[in-house]
């Protein structure tokens, strides 16, 4: 889940961790009641500052995705289907924004992009 975290990216590490977990929750990969790895375990595993992991978990708690129970750990909360759909829509915009930024840098026009998307989807479903 955390393989793609990039310390060199301009996106802060805590935001990268939170984003990976949010996607896993929205996709149902992490079910309600599931425990997140302990701060200590995740910090050692990713060789990151424990404060970074705590900040990621706090952000997820503020957004209602998880619940931090004193002494017990951090657990995924029951997220309403609309909440998960909203998160998926948000991730979709993130993907599109990234693609548009890359396309802009390469000088790919919107119609070329649309043609490529149509072609990819065609290949997928045929």
């Amino acid at each position, binding site marked *: 889940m955390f393989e793609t975290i990039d310390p*060199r990216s301009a996106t802060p590490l805590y935001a990268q961790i939170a984003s990976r977990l949010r996607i896993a929750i929205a996709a149902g990969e992490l079910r309600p009641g599931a425990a997140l790895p302990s701060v200590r375990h995740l*910090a050692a*595993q990713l*060789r990151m500052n*424990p404060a970074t992991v705590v900040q990621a978990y706090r952000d997820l708690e503020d957004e209602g995705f998880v619940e931090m129970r004193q002494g017990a750990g951090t657990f995924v909360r029951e997220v309403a289907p609309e909440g998960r759909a909203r998160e998926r829509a948000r991730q979709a915009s993130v993907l599109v924004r990234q693609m548009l930024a890359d396309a802009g840098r390469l000088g790919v026009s919107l119609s070329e992009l649309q043609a490529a998307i149509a072609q990819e989807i065609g290949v997928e479903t045929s």
Partner: protein
Amino acid sequence: MMNAIETDQLHYRAAKTFHISGLGLKVPVGAIYGFLGPNGSGKTTTIRLVLGLLRPLAGRISVLGHEIPRDAPSILAQVGFVPEQPHLDSILTVRETLAFHAAFYPTWDWPWAERLLRQFDLEERQPFGRLSKGQKGKVMMLLALAQRPELLVLDEPTDGLDPVVRRDVLSALLDYVSQRRASVFISSHLIHELERFCDWIGVMDNGRLITQVPMERFKNGIKRLRISGAPPIPESLPFVLLGREQTDGATETWLVREWEPQMSAYFDRPGVTLTEVMDLDLEEGFVELLRTFRGPRA
């Protein structure tokens, strides 16, 4: 006590050509402080001063709220130190080395030392001198951690180790830091390694501390801008211009510090376009900082 390590106006002279001047280090309690600088910039000398192994010409040093070198003997029991070069007896076995070390530290934690021995896959009957470089590196980190220090001072602890050993050693360090809110002062050449876990950065050059900031500010503040139709003599800049060069024709590349997103408004003027704002990672920022500090290019 606000700072685990603090120096004020520290001066030291090793030879006619090398001196440390006006050093003001501040390592906040609980911070993981990355200490960067090119070879010969004074990192190891600074570490030796902080630990009371060298006497300063002038200035004040405090470690965990105690004055150095006066209180060094008592305070060093709470400091885990990994020196650049191993300083251990090569004839003693790993087990004997641990026992020898344990005798000096009242806070030594045997169960944890045993666990680290297994975790690091160390053969305890091997003489220290016969260990590979990677195994020596693991023993050094084990010794520093098993004494359960409040402060860890690590001088290039992963230098020359292979990536697998580096990962094991740093995981153990971060595991310890999570258990106990210890402060860490770590020097390293492996900038990308520090980028993962340091929350403070200090940069040395030629015996001086040229930068000391929270990591986030260091990383966010330095940008490379690409501008077409750049104004010839920039006036009232909201950021600090470190350097500029003509890329091709009407396009210029600027290197800036203290950049914030809303500052792109500065380029909203006729004939000027800000085409790109590029992020620099820690290594690029570090290299650019040294380059501009040593004299901006024309």
